[in-house]
């Protein structure tokens, strides 16, 4: 399920539309994941506040979307572009890769909620493929 040239163009095009709101979208997606899939809270047990207004949740949502933005910029070589992030997730954070799907779904939900007209099934397809490729690149260093 690799990205075709058309997929990459669609991803870049859609990301250009949403990147202005990336910080708030990231925070919303992260908080949604923590609420809808409570098992993911185990990775944030060291945070005192896991509510929607938590500054830590907001800041981390921004960090995550920054990572996605970097991935869009290196879409032609996701594995190479995300090496350091992959090492972080593999050796330090040790997030089970099954959780990447959960956050990815929540990101798709916030895209749909905020950009209902632009997030067509064709765009959804390309973004879903991209997020799966991103998750694969993040899992590269795991074993």
């Amino acid at each position, binding site marked *: 399920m690799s990205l075709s040239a058309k997929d990459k163009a669609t991803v870049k095009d859609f990301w250009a539309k949403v990147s202005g709101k990336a910080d708030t979208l990231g925070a*919303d997606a992260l*908080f*949604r994941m923590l*609420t*809808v*899939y409570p098992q993911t809270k185990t990775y944030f047990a060291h945070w005192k506040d896991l509510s*929607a207004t938590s500054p830590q949740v907001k800041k981390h949502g921004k960090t995550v979307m920054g990572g996605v933005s970097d991935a869009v910029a290196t879409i032609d070589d996701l594995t190479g572009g995300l090496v350091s992030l992959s090492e972080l997730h593999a050796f330090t954070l040790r997030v089970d890769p099954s959780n990447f799907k959960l956050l990815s*779904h929540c990101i*798709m*939900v*916030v895209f*749909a*909620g*905020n950009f*209902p007209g632009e*997030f067509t*099934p*064709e765009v*959804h*397809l390309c973004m*879903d493929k991209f997020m799966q490729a991103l998750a694969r690149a993040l899992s590269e260093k795991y074993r």
Partner: protein
Amino acid sequence: MVEWTDFERTTISSIFASLDYNDVGPKALCRCLIVYPWTQRYFGAYGNLYNPAAIKSNPLIAAHGVKVMHGLDRAVKNMDDIKATYAELSVLHSEKLHVDRDNFRLLADCLTIVIAAKMGSAFTCDVQAALQKFVAVVKCLWEEFNGTLLPEVLSVSTVALYYSHVNKCMNKKLKKKCAYFRFY
């Protein structure tokens, strides 16, 4: 039996009451067939699914999308006994249609996204959590077939036995269409 909070009951009822099934059903099913094209395997008799435009304009797919929403509506009206409500549908999806369990999650995810697009900011995290719980319960459509069987936690040999059983149950028509199952 599933325990529902008052918030979850009210939320699920009001979400579905606000939806136009003739609009949301086709949109959710089309999105599933476009975003996860392997789900098209169950719609071989539904005509032209060659590209997204064909899928979106296919009247049989649209009609089936509406049917799916009415099926979900039955669960909304019987939230305290979804398993009994879906007993017949469960057998249909497992014994006759042989739908891979994971495909229910894919369709549910697409339905969630269509509802999110409709509701906008009203689709808060708590509302999404309630909907997620509701669609997860729909997996009892699969449980009728294999109880609590979880292929992913069994050994490789047992998984092979499981799939060879599925293979034997499938009718010849589906077997020809699905090269994957020839592996077993």
